[in-house]
């Protein structure tokens, strides 16, 4: 069977499952749903699955994508319901389709950040993000370097419950947590008490929804 793509959400208690644990968890769900995954050949066979854009622990998502191959045939439209019958709390299969485009073509991510803050800070925060450049330290393989996150923000606005932004997730990749770190570092008086992020949708370079 062709390479298939599963769109799923990860919310609630499941946001604390790490990327590596999620791979195991989803594999087990396929097995329970009697949807055997195709395995690699060779000395140490492993199921051929890959999940795009590993999700940080603590971040929710409504738009996770996982590619996989099945060892047998299955009706694509039935797969989500079969998986959902055997998923742990908080992981929900939304859709399965044949994958055509590569994960590398994903460019933008729309994300929602729920802020715990009082309303009058909203204006000031918008002004903060309107700056020409926003330079924050970022931990890289080589150590800590200063980067300007502004070019990676396509749009950003605040509402009563927090922010909604479209940020670049590949080349460069901007972890939405950096938006909060920028506030904490550069405008600590505006820093929210608590933020929880949710990925809403992924897009290609042209802001078409990536499928």
């Amino acid at each position, binding site marked *: 069977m062709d390479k298939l793509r599963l769109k799923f959400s990860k919310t*609630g*208690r*499941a946001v*604390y*499952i*790490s990327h*590596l*644990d*999620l791979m*195991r*968890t989803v*594999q*087990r*769900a*396929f*097995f*329970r749903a009697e949807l*055997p995954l195709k*395995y690699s050949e060779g*000395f*140490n*066979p492993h199921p051929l699955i890959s999940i795009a854009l590993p999700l940080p*622990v*603590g971040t929710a998502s409504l738009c996770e994508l996982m590619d996989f191959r099945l060892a047998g045939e299955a009706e694509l439209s039935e797969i989500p319901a079969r998986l959902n019958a*055997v*998923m*742990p*709390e*908080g992981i929900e299969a939304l859709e399965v389709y044949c994958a055509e485009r590569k994960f590398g073509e994903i460019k933008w991510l729309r994300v929602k950040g729920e802020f*715990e803050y009082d309303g009058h800070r909203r204006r000031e925060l918008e002004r903060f993000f309107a700056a020409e450049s926003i330079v924050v330290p970022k931990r890289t393989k080589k150590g800590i370097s200063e980067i300007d996150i502004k070019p990676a923000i396509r749009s950003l606005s605040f509402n009563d419950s927090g922010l909604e932004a479209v940020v670049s997730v590949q080349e460069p990749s901007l972890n939405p947590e950096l938006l909060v770190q920028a506030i904490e570092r550069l405008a600590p008086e505006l820093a929210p008490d*608590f933020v*929880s992020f949710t990925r809403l949708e992924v897009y290609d370079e042209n802001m078409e929804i990536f499928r």
Partner: protein
Amino acid sequence: MNRKLEKILRRVQKPARYTGGEYNQIIKDKSEVDLRMAFCFPDTYEIGMSNLGMRILYGVINEMPGVWCERVVAPWMDMEEEMRREGIPLWALESGDPVSEFDVVAFSLGYEMAYTNVLNMLDLAGIPLRSADRPGLVPLVFAGGTICCNPEPLADFIDLFVIGEGEDMDREVLELFRQAKKEGWSKKEFLRRAARIGGVYVPSLYEVSYNDDGTIAAIEPKDGAPEVVTKRIVEDFENSYFPTRPVVPSTEIVHDRVTLELFRGCIRGCRFCQAGFAYRPVRVRSVEKLVQQGIESLKNTGYQEISLASLSSSDYPGLSRLCDGLLDWCEPRNINLSLPSLRADNFSMDIMKRVQKVRKAGLTFAPEAGTQRLRDAINKNVTEEELLESCRVAFEGGWNGVKLYFMLGLPTETDEDVLGIAGLAFKVLETWKKHAINRGRGARITVSTSCFVPKPHSPFQWEAQVTMDEYRRRVKLLADNMKSRAINYNWHDPETSLIEAVLSRGDRRLGAVIEHVWRNGGRMEAWSENFSLQRWLDAFKACGLDPAFYANRERGRDEIMPWQRINMGVRPEHLWRERERAYSFTLTPDCSVRCTGCGASALTKGGLYCG
């Protein structure tokens, strides 16, 4: 999930172990539940979720209508710090509700070094530590598990102990408690009645008095408590409950696989082994049943690995057929069958070769002692020839690594026995040189020693543990005489072994010591990085007790043991006889050869002898 908790979950290591929500967790409608039990495991999630006893009893208890049993695990220290700072009390994984709201708080106790975690969990739950400080009926705090065969060290803290296998007994205790709650009994009334349930030991119903030399003068039952509490067992093991729908953790745990239980008890009778005596009589599950339970469990969990559990899986009569039956189903589905450590005999090696076709996982043998004389004394029925023959087969089959486990400080051990370990390791190396098919990579022979801990209800329950200095001397003697690049020698530190020896045979005066250690920061002490001998020594001093009295003192035949009122099935006379046979280096045949009349058969059909 509340905001406070959400915040701290961002800051702690491995947050998924605190959230619940896993597949197969049991959620009940609170409006249909009239008894809630917090089933506490006094160690990390990763250990607790790997525990087969927890899996079994979680399923058994949740089968009771109206009863909701939820899991509670001990937080790691980073989480504990956050909880105490934010004022978040200990919660149960399924509902997230505070443990203090539950009717019953139960602990599964498998290892003495978890005692301080029991106190810590009660404290984090906001429940008074001492039974006497909890005058009300609710919450009932009870405990069961392997180490409860000597419940005395926790006697001050636990309202009642369940001795033996919990499948039937736990349900009976909960039913009685439900009645007590409904009818408004006092705690005292409930405990008095609970003491009549077979296997239930209520420590407050036994009065302990001491002699001037610190030994026990008497343990007197009162208020109609039984003279002897006899452990409970599952008689029909074939048809007893097995969890084929266990909770599947969403984060990696220690034994992250389906585990089948082949049998309970052990035919062997190694004299140092508590489990070998305390879990008798042997009860076996059929191959057909096990294959069926295995397949069902794999289907219900999605696990890609299955393993076999028992005290000595090589002794399972249908081992070969069982492996074939499981492999038939597992191999086409890329599921691994992993074998526990097997005995060093040819038959077992055959099975190892068949099962581990690709992965050459390490081979582990436990000769326990270095010379035949000492192996005979401890009744470890393995000969040097058998061990070397197994190694030959393994090396010819492509293995290059062997791990050999020994104990130092066994009764009657001499320097000759210690050096015998080196001799055996060199013979294994010789065997490798002669038979290895792939010598390019070199041999990896690992020798490990630990310090022998005498255990209650074993034939060595009267023995003195060697002192730490003496253990270290023997370690050095062995290390100095086992120098080879191919042999790697690890020894376990004797410090933990000393405290294990104290606690495993301790009396209820140790409750104060345990509490002192906990108050001074003792947590998660099964993890060597958190263990502090000094903290224990300080506590003994503060409580006016001497650890050597408990660990390093030989008991007389007639001394009253703290577990005098607990009957695990095997008669003390039999244990004593086995001890005498140890001193004359006489083997006792295993149960499959001849019944020795240990007394455990009285637990099922009655009478001294099996068969």
